[in-house]
């Protein structure tokens, strides 16, 4: 039997409520998909482009000190046009779930 590994992630939603979720590392998921699977942001307001870094609807802020501040080129370009962008902004669809994310804390940015 395959024992699936999960990581603990703390997600603050757009209303300021904090949720602790267990995200699977073996389902080829990204953080945006985790947020959607736990329905922590209203359907239709997150992951609009499907995870192609072509919209900023899944923008989040990395609150813990995980080494996640390196943005990809397309992501950087998208964030350069998005609103409410901070130093610690990332597109959650560009963060694959892996074991290094244990105890990650993020906040979902407001809709723009």
């Amino acid at each position: 039997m395959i024992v699936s590994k999960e990581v603990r992630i703390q997600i603050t939603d757009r209303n300021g409520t904090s949720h602790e979720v267990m995200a699977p590392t073996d389902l080829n998921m990204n953080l945006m998909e985790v947020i959607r699977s736990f329905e922590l942001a209203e359907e239709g307001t997150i992951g609009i482009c499907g995870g192609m870094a072509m919209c900023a609807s899944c923008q989040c802020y990395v609150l813990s000190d995980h080494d996640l501040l390196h943005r990809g080129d397309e992501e950087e370009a998208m964030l350069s046009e998005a609103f409410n962008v901070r130093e610690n902004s990332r597109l959650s669809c560009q963060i694959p779930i892996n074991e290094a994310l244990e105890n990650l804390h993020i906040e979902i940015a407001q809709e723009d």
Partner: protein
Amino acid sequence: MIQTDILIIGAGPTGLFAVFEAGLLKLKCHIIDALPQAGGQLSELYPKKPIYDIPGYPEVGAQELVDNLMEQIKPFQPGFTLGERAEKITKIDDKLFEVVTDKGTVHRAAVVAIAGGLGSFEPRKPQLPNIEQFEDKGLLYMVKNPAQFKDKRVVIAGGGDSALDWSIYLSDIAAEVVLVHRRNEFRGALDSVEKVQDLKSAGKIKLYTPYEVTKIEGDIQLKSLRLKSNQTETELDLETDFFIPLFGLTPKLGPIANWGLEIEKNAIKVDNTLDYQTNIPGIYAIGDVNTYPGKLKLILCGFHEATLMCQSAFARIHPDKRNVLKYTTVGGINGFDGSVKQAPKAVVKTID
């Protein structure tokens, strides 16, 4: 006034394929879309990206799929109202709906099929305190009539293709073009970036990077903009006649949300046990815009939904006619344009 059998709202893959299935049943279609071209998200968001889950296509480009669908539905001569957003729906009688667009185009049809995907694409507005007060008073989110900028001062904000392309285009028309972008890097086609560079060197475009517009000022008409450097925090005021923020498009369900349809999770609830009809008989919702238990937002599911919708639309439009499923391999395609596609007949001949 445009009259048709099925009025489709949304020219994405699902809406386009519905034309084909309707055509097989001899039903005519007309499509409304807010974007100026057919294809929906595929053409607008990711035309060059590959799709791997269209049955029978190991890989197909998004725009290529749209082009193929357009070719496939050509014999059924769909009408298009492009660049207009479906705004209002009225039930004229039991067999007729009227849909009017934001530009006043009137459409009438027995059946309305909403294939609106994520909604209509609308410009993203920068978050400036009094921005709405200046809309259409010097502030524009899209360029519709370039001639209006003749000998005027224009400030464009944004770092993508449309900001670059309009800066280039208007530099020939306007008295002054200023391009403001919050980064030093632009994301756009290489030749557009280079062209802007040339025009900047030639003094035809003034560039402010990394700057942001932080405030709009004016009485009734927009008069000036406050710009702030993202590097040095320096501020400056810029007098202008027009401000055009170009920060891309974002889909919004829009006026459809007020049509009295049951909405759940930003999508329209439909009857998935039968025909994808909404709570209003005669109005259907197909593709990404609908929701039901187990819904998957996939193009291939949209195709299926479009097909069943057409069967139900046929029964609604022709309650007295019987309908039986025909295979295109057997029946061929008889276009409304008189074209006929048919499987070649087998030869029955004795070999001596």
